[in-house]
């Protein structure tokens, strides 16, 4: 119940903020924009991008180990 009320309040706030730009929840253009955008978002992130992030992160961690090792010597 409380959660629903909160969601409604948030929605009303968004509605108020967006009321003047014609892109709010009741507008055709706003809804279609979000539908297009959302369809791409929902495709998920390609594997190669996730791999890239993993590699960047691993390389950084490896570098830290190397540096830590050097400090210890």
């Amino acid at each position, binding site marked *: 119940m409380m959660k629903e009320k909160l969601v409604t309040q948030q929605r009303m706030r968004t509605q108020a903020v967006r009321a003047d*730009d014609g*892109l709010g929840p009741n507008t055709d253009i706003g809804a279609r924009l979000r539908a*297009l*955008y*959302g369809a791409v978002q929902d495709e998920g992130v390609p594997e190669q*991008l996730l791999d*890239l992030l993993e*590699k960047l992160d*691993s390389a950084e961690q*490896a570098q830290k180990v190397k540096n830590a090792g050097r400090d210890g010597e």
Partner: protein
Amino acid sequence: MLAVTGSDGVTGEPTTFKREMLATLPSLRAFAVSLTGKHDKADDLVQDTVMKAWAKQSSFEMGTNIKAWLFTILRNEFYSQMRKRGREVQDSDGIFTERLSVHPAQYGSMDMQDFKKALAQLPDDQREAVILIGASGFSYEEAAEICDCAVGTMKSRVSRARTRLQDILKISGEADYGPDAVSAQVTTTNHSF
């Protein structure tokens, strides 16, 4: 190329930067598709952005808006690549074209096709403005910062984009006001715009 050893639990800290970046990727990618018009180019652009962002992560303050920061990098990267390459002709169907197999249930595919074409007719600055505000969920202040313009400029771009889209599509701004309000608006279109 890249060393991939000794990655786990070295420092004991969760890599917040990576996690926040991951969370932003779907939206960042959708914005990239809207800019490039093609999925393969969008993915290249996101990849370049991820590498750039990673290289300059020390300049990012944790706790501030990583989404806006990443969008700014991606947008700058896009326009700098465009300047180098020269403006390429966009796909004839406009933006958001390829592999967009999911059509939202409430719209027919022709309907969305028309909308994509209408979006493609907008000047670049108006299109990105209406997408950042209408779809990415940024405030006018954030969008203005991403596009390096004044807040007032951002507001006017969004307003022009909306008017232009309504004009092209011959639709009214409000969809829920019933047939009378809609037809009333349609008949006054030429005068009010």
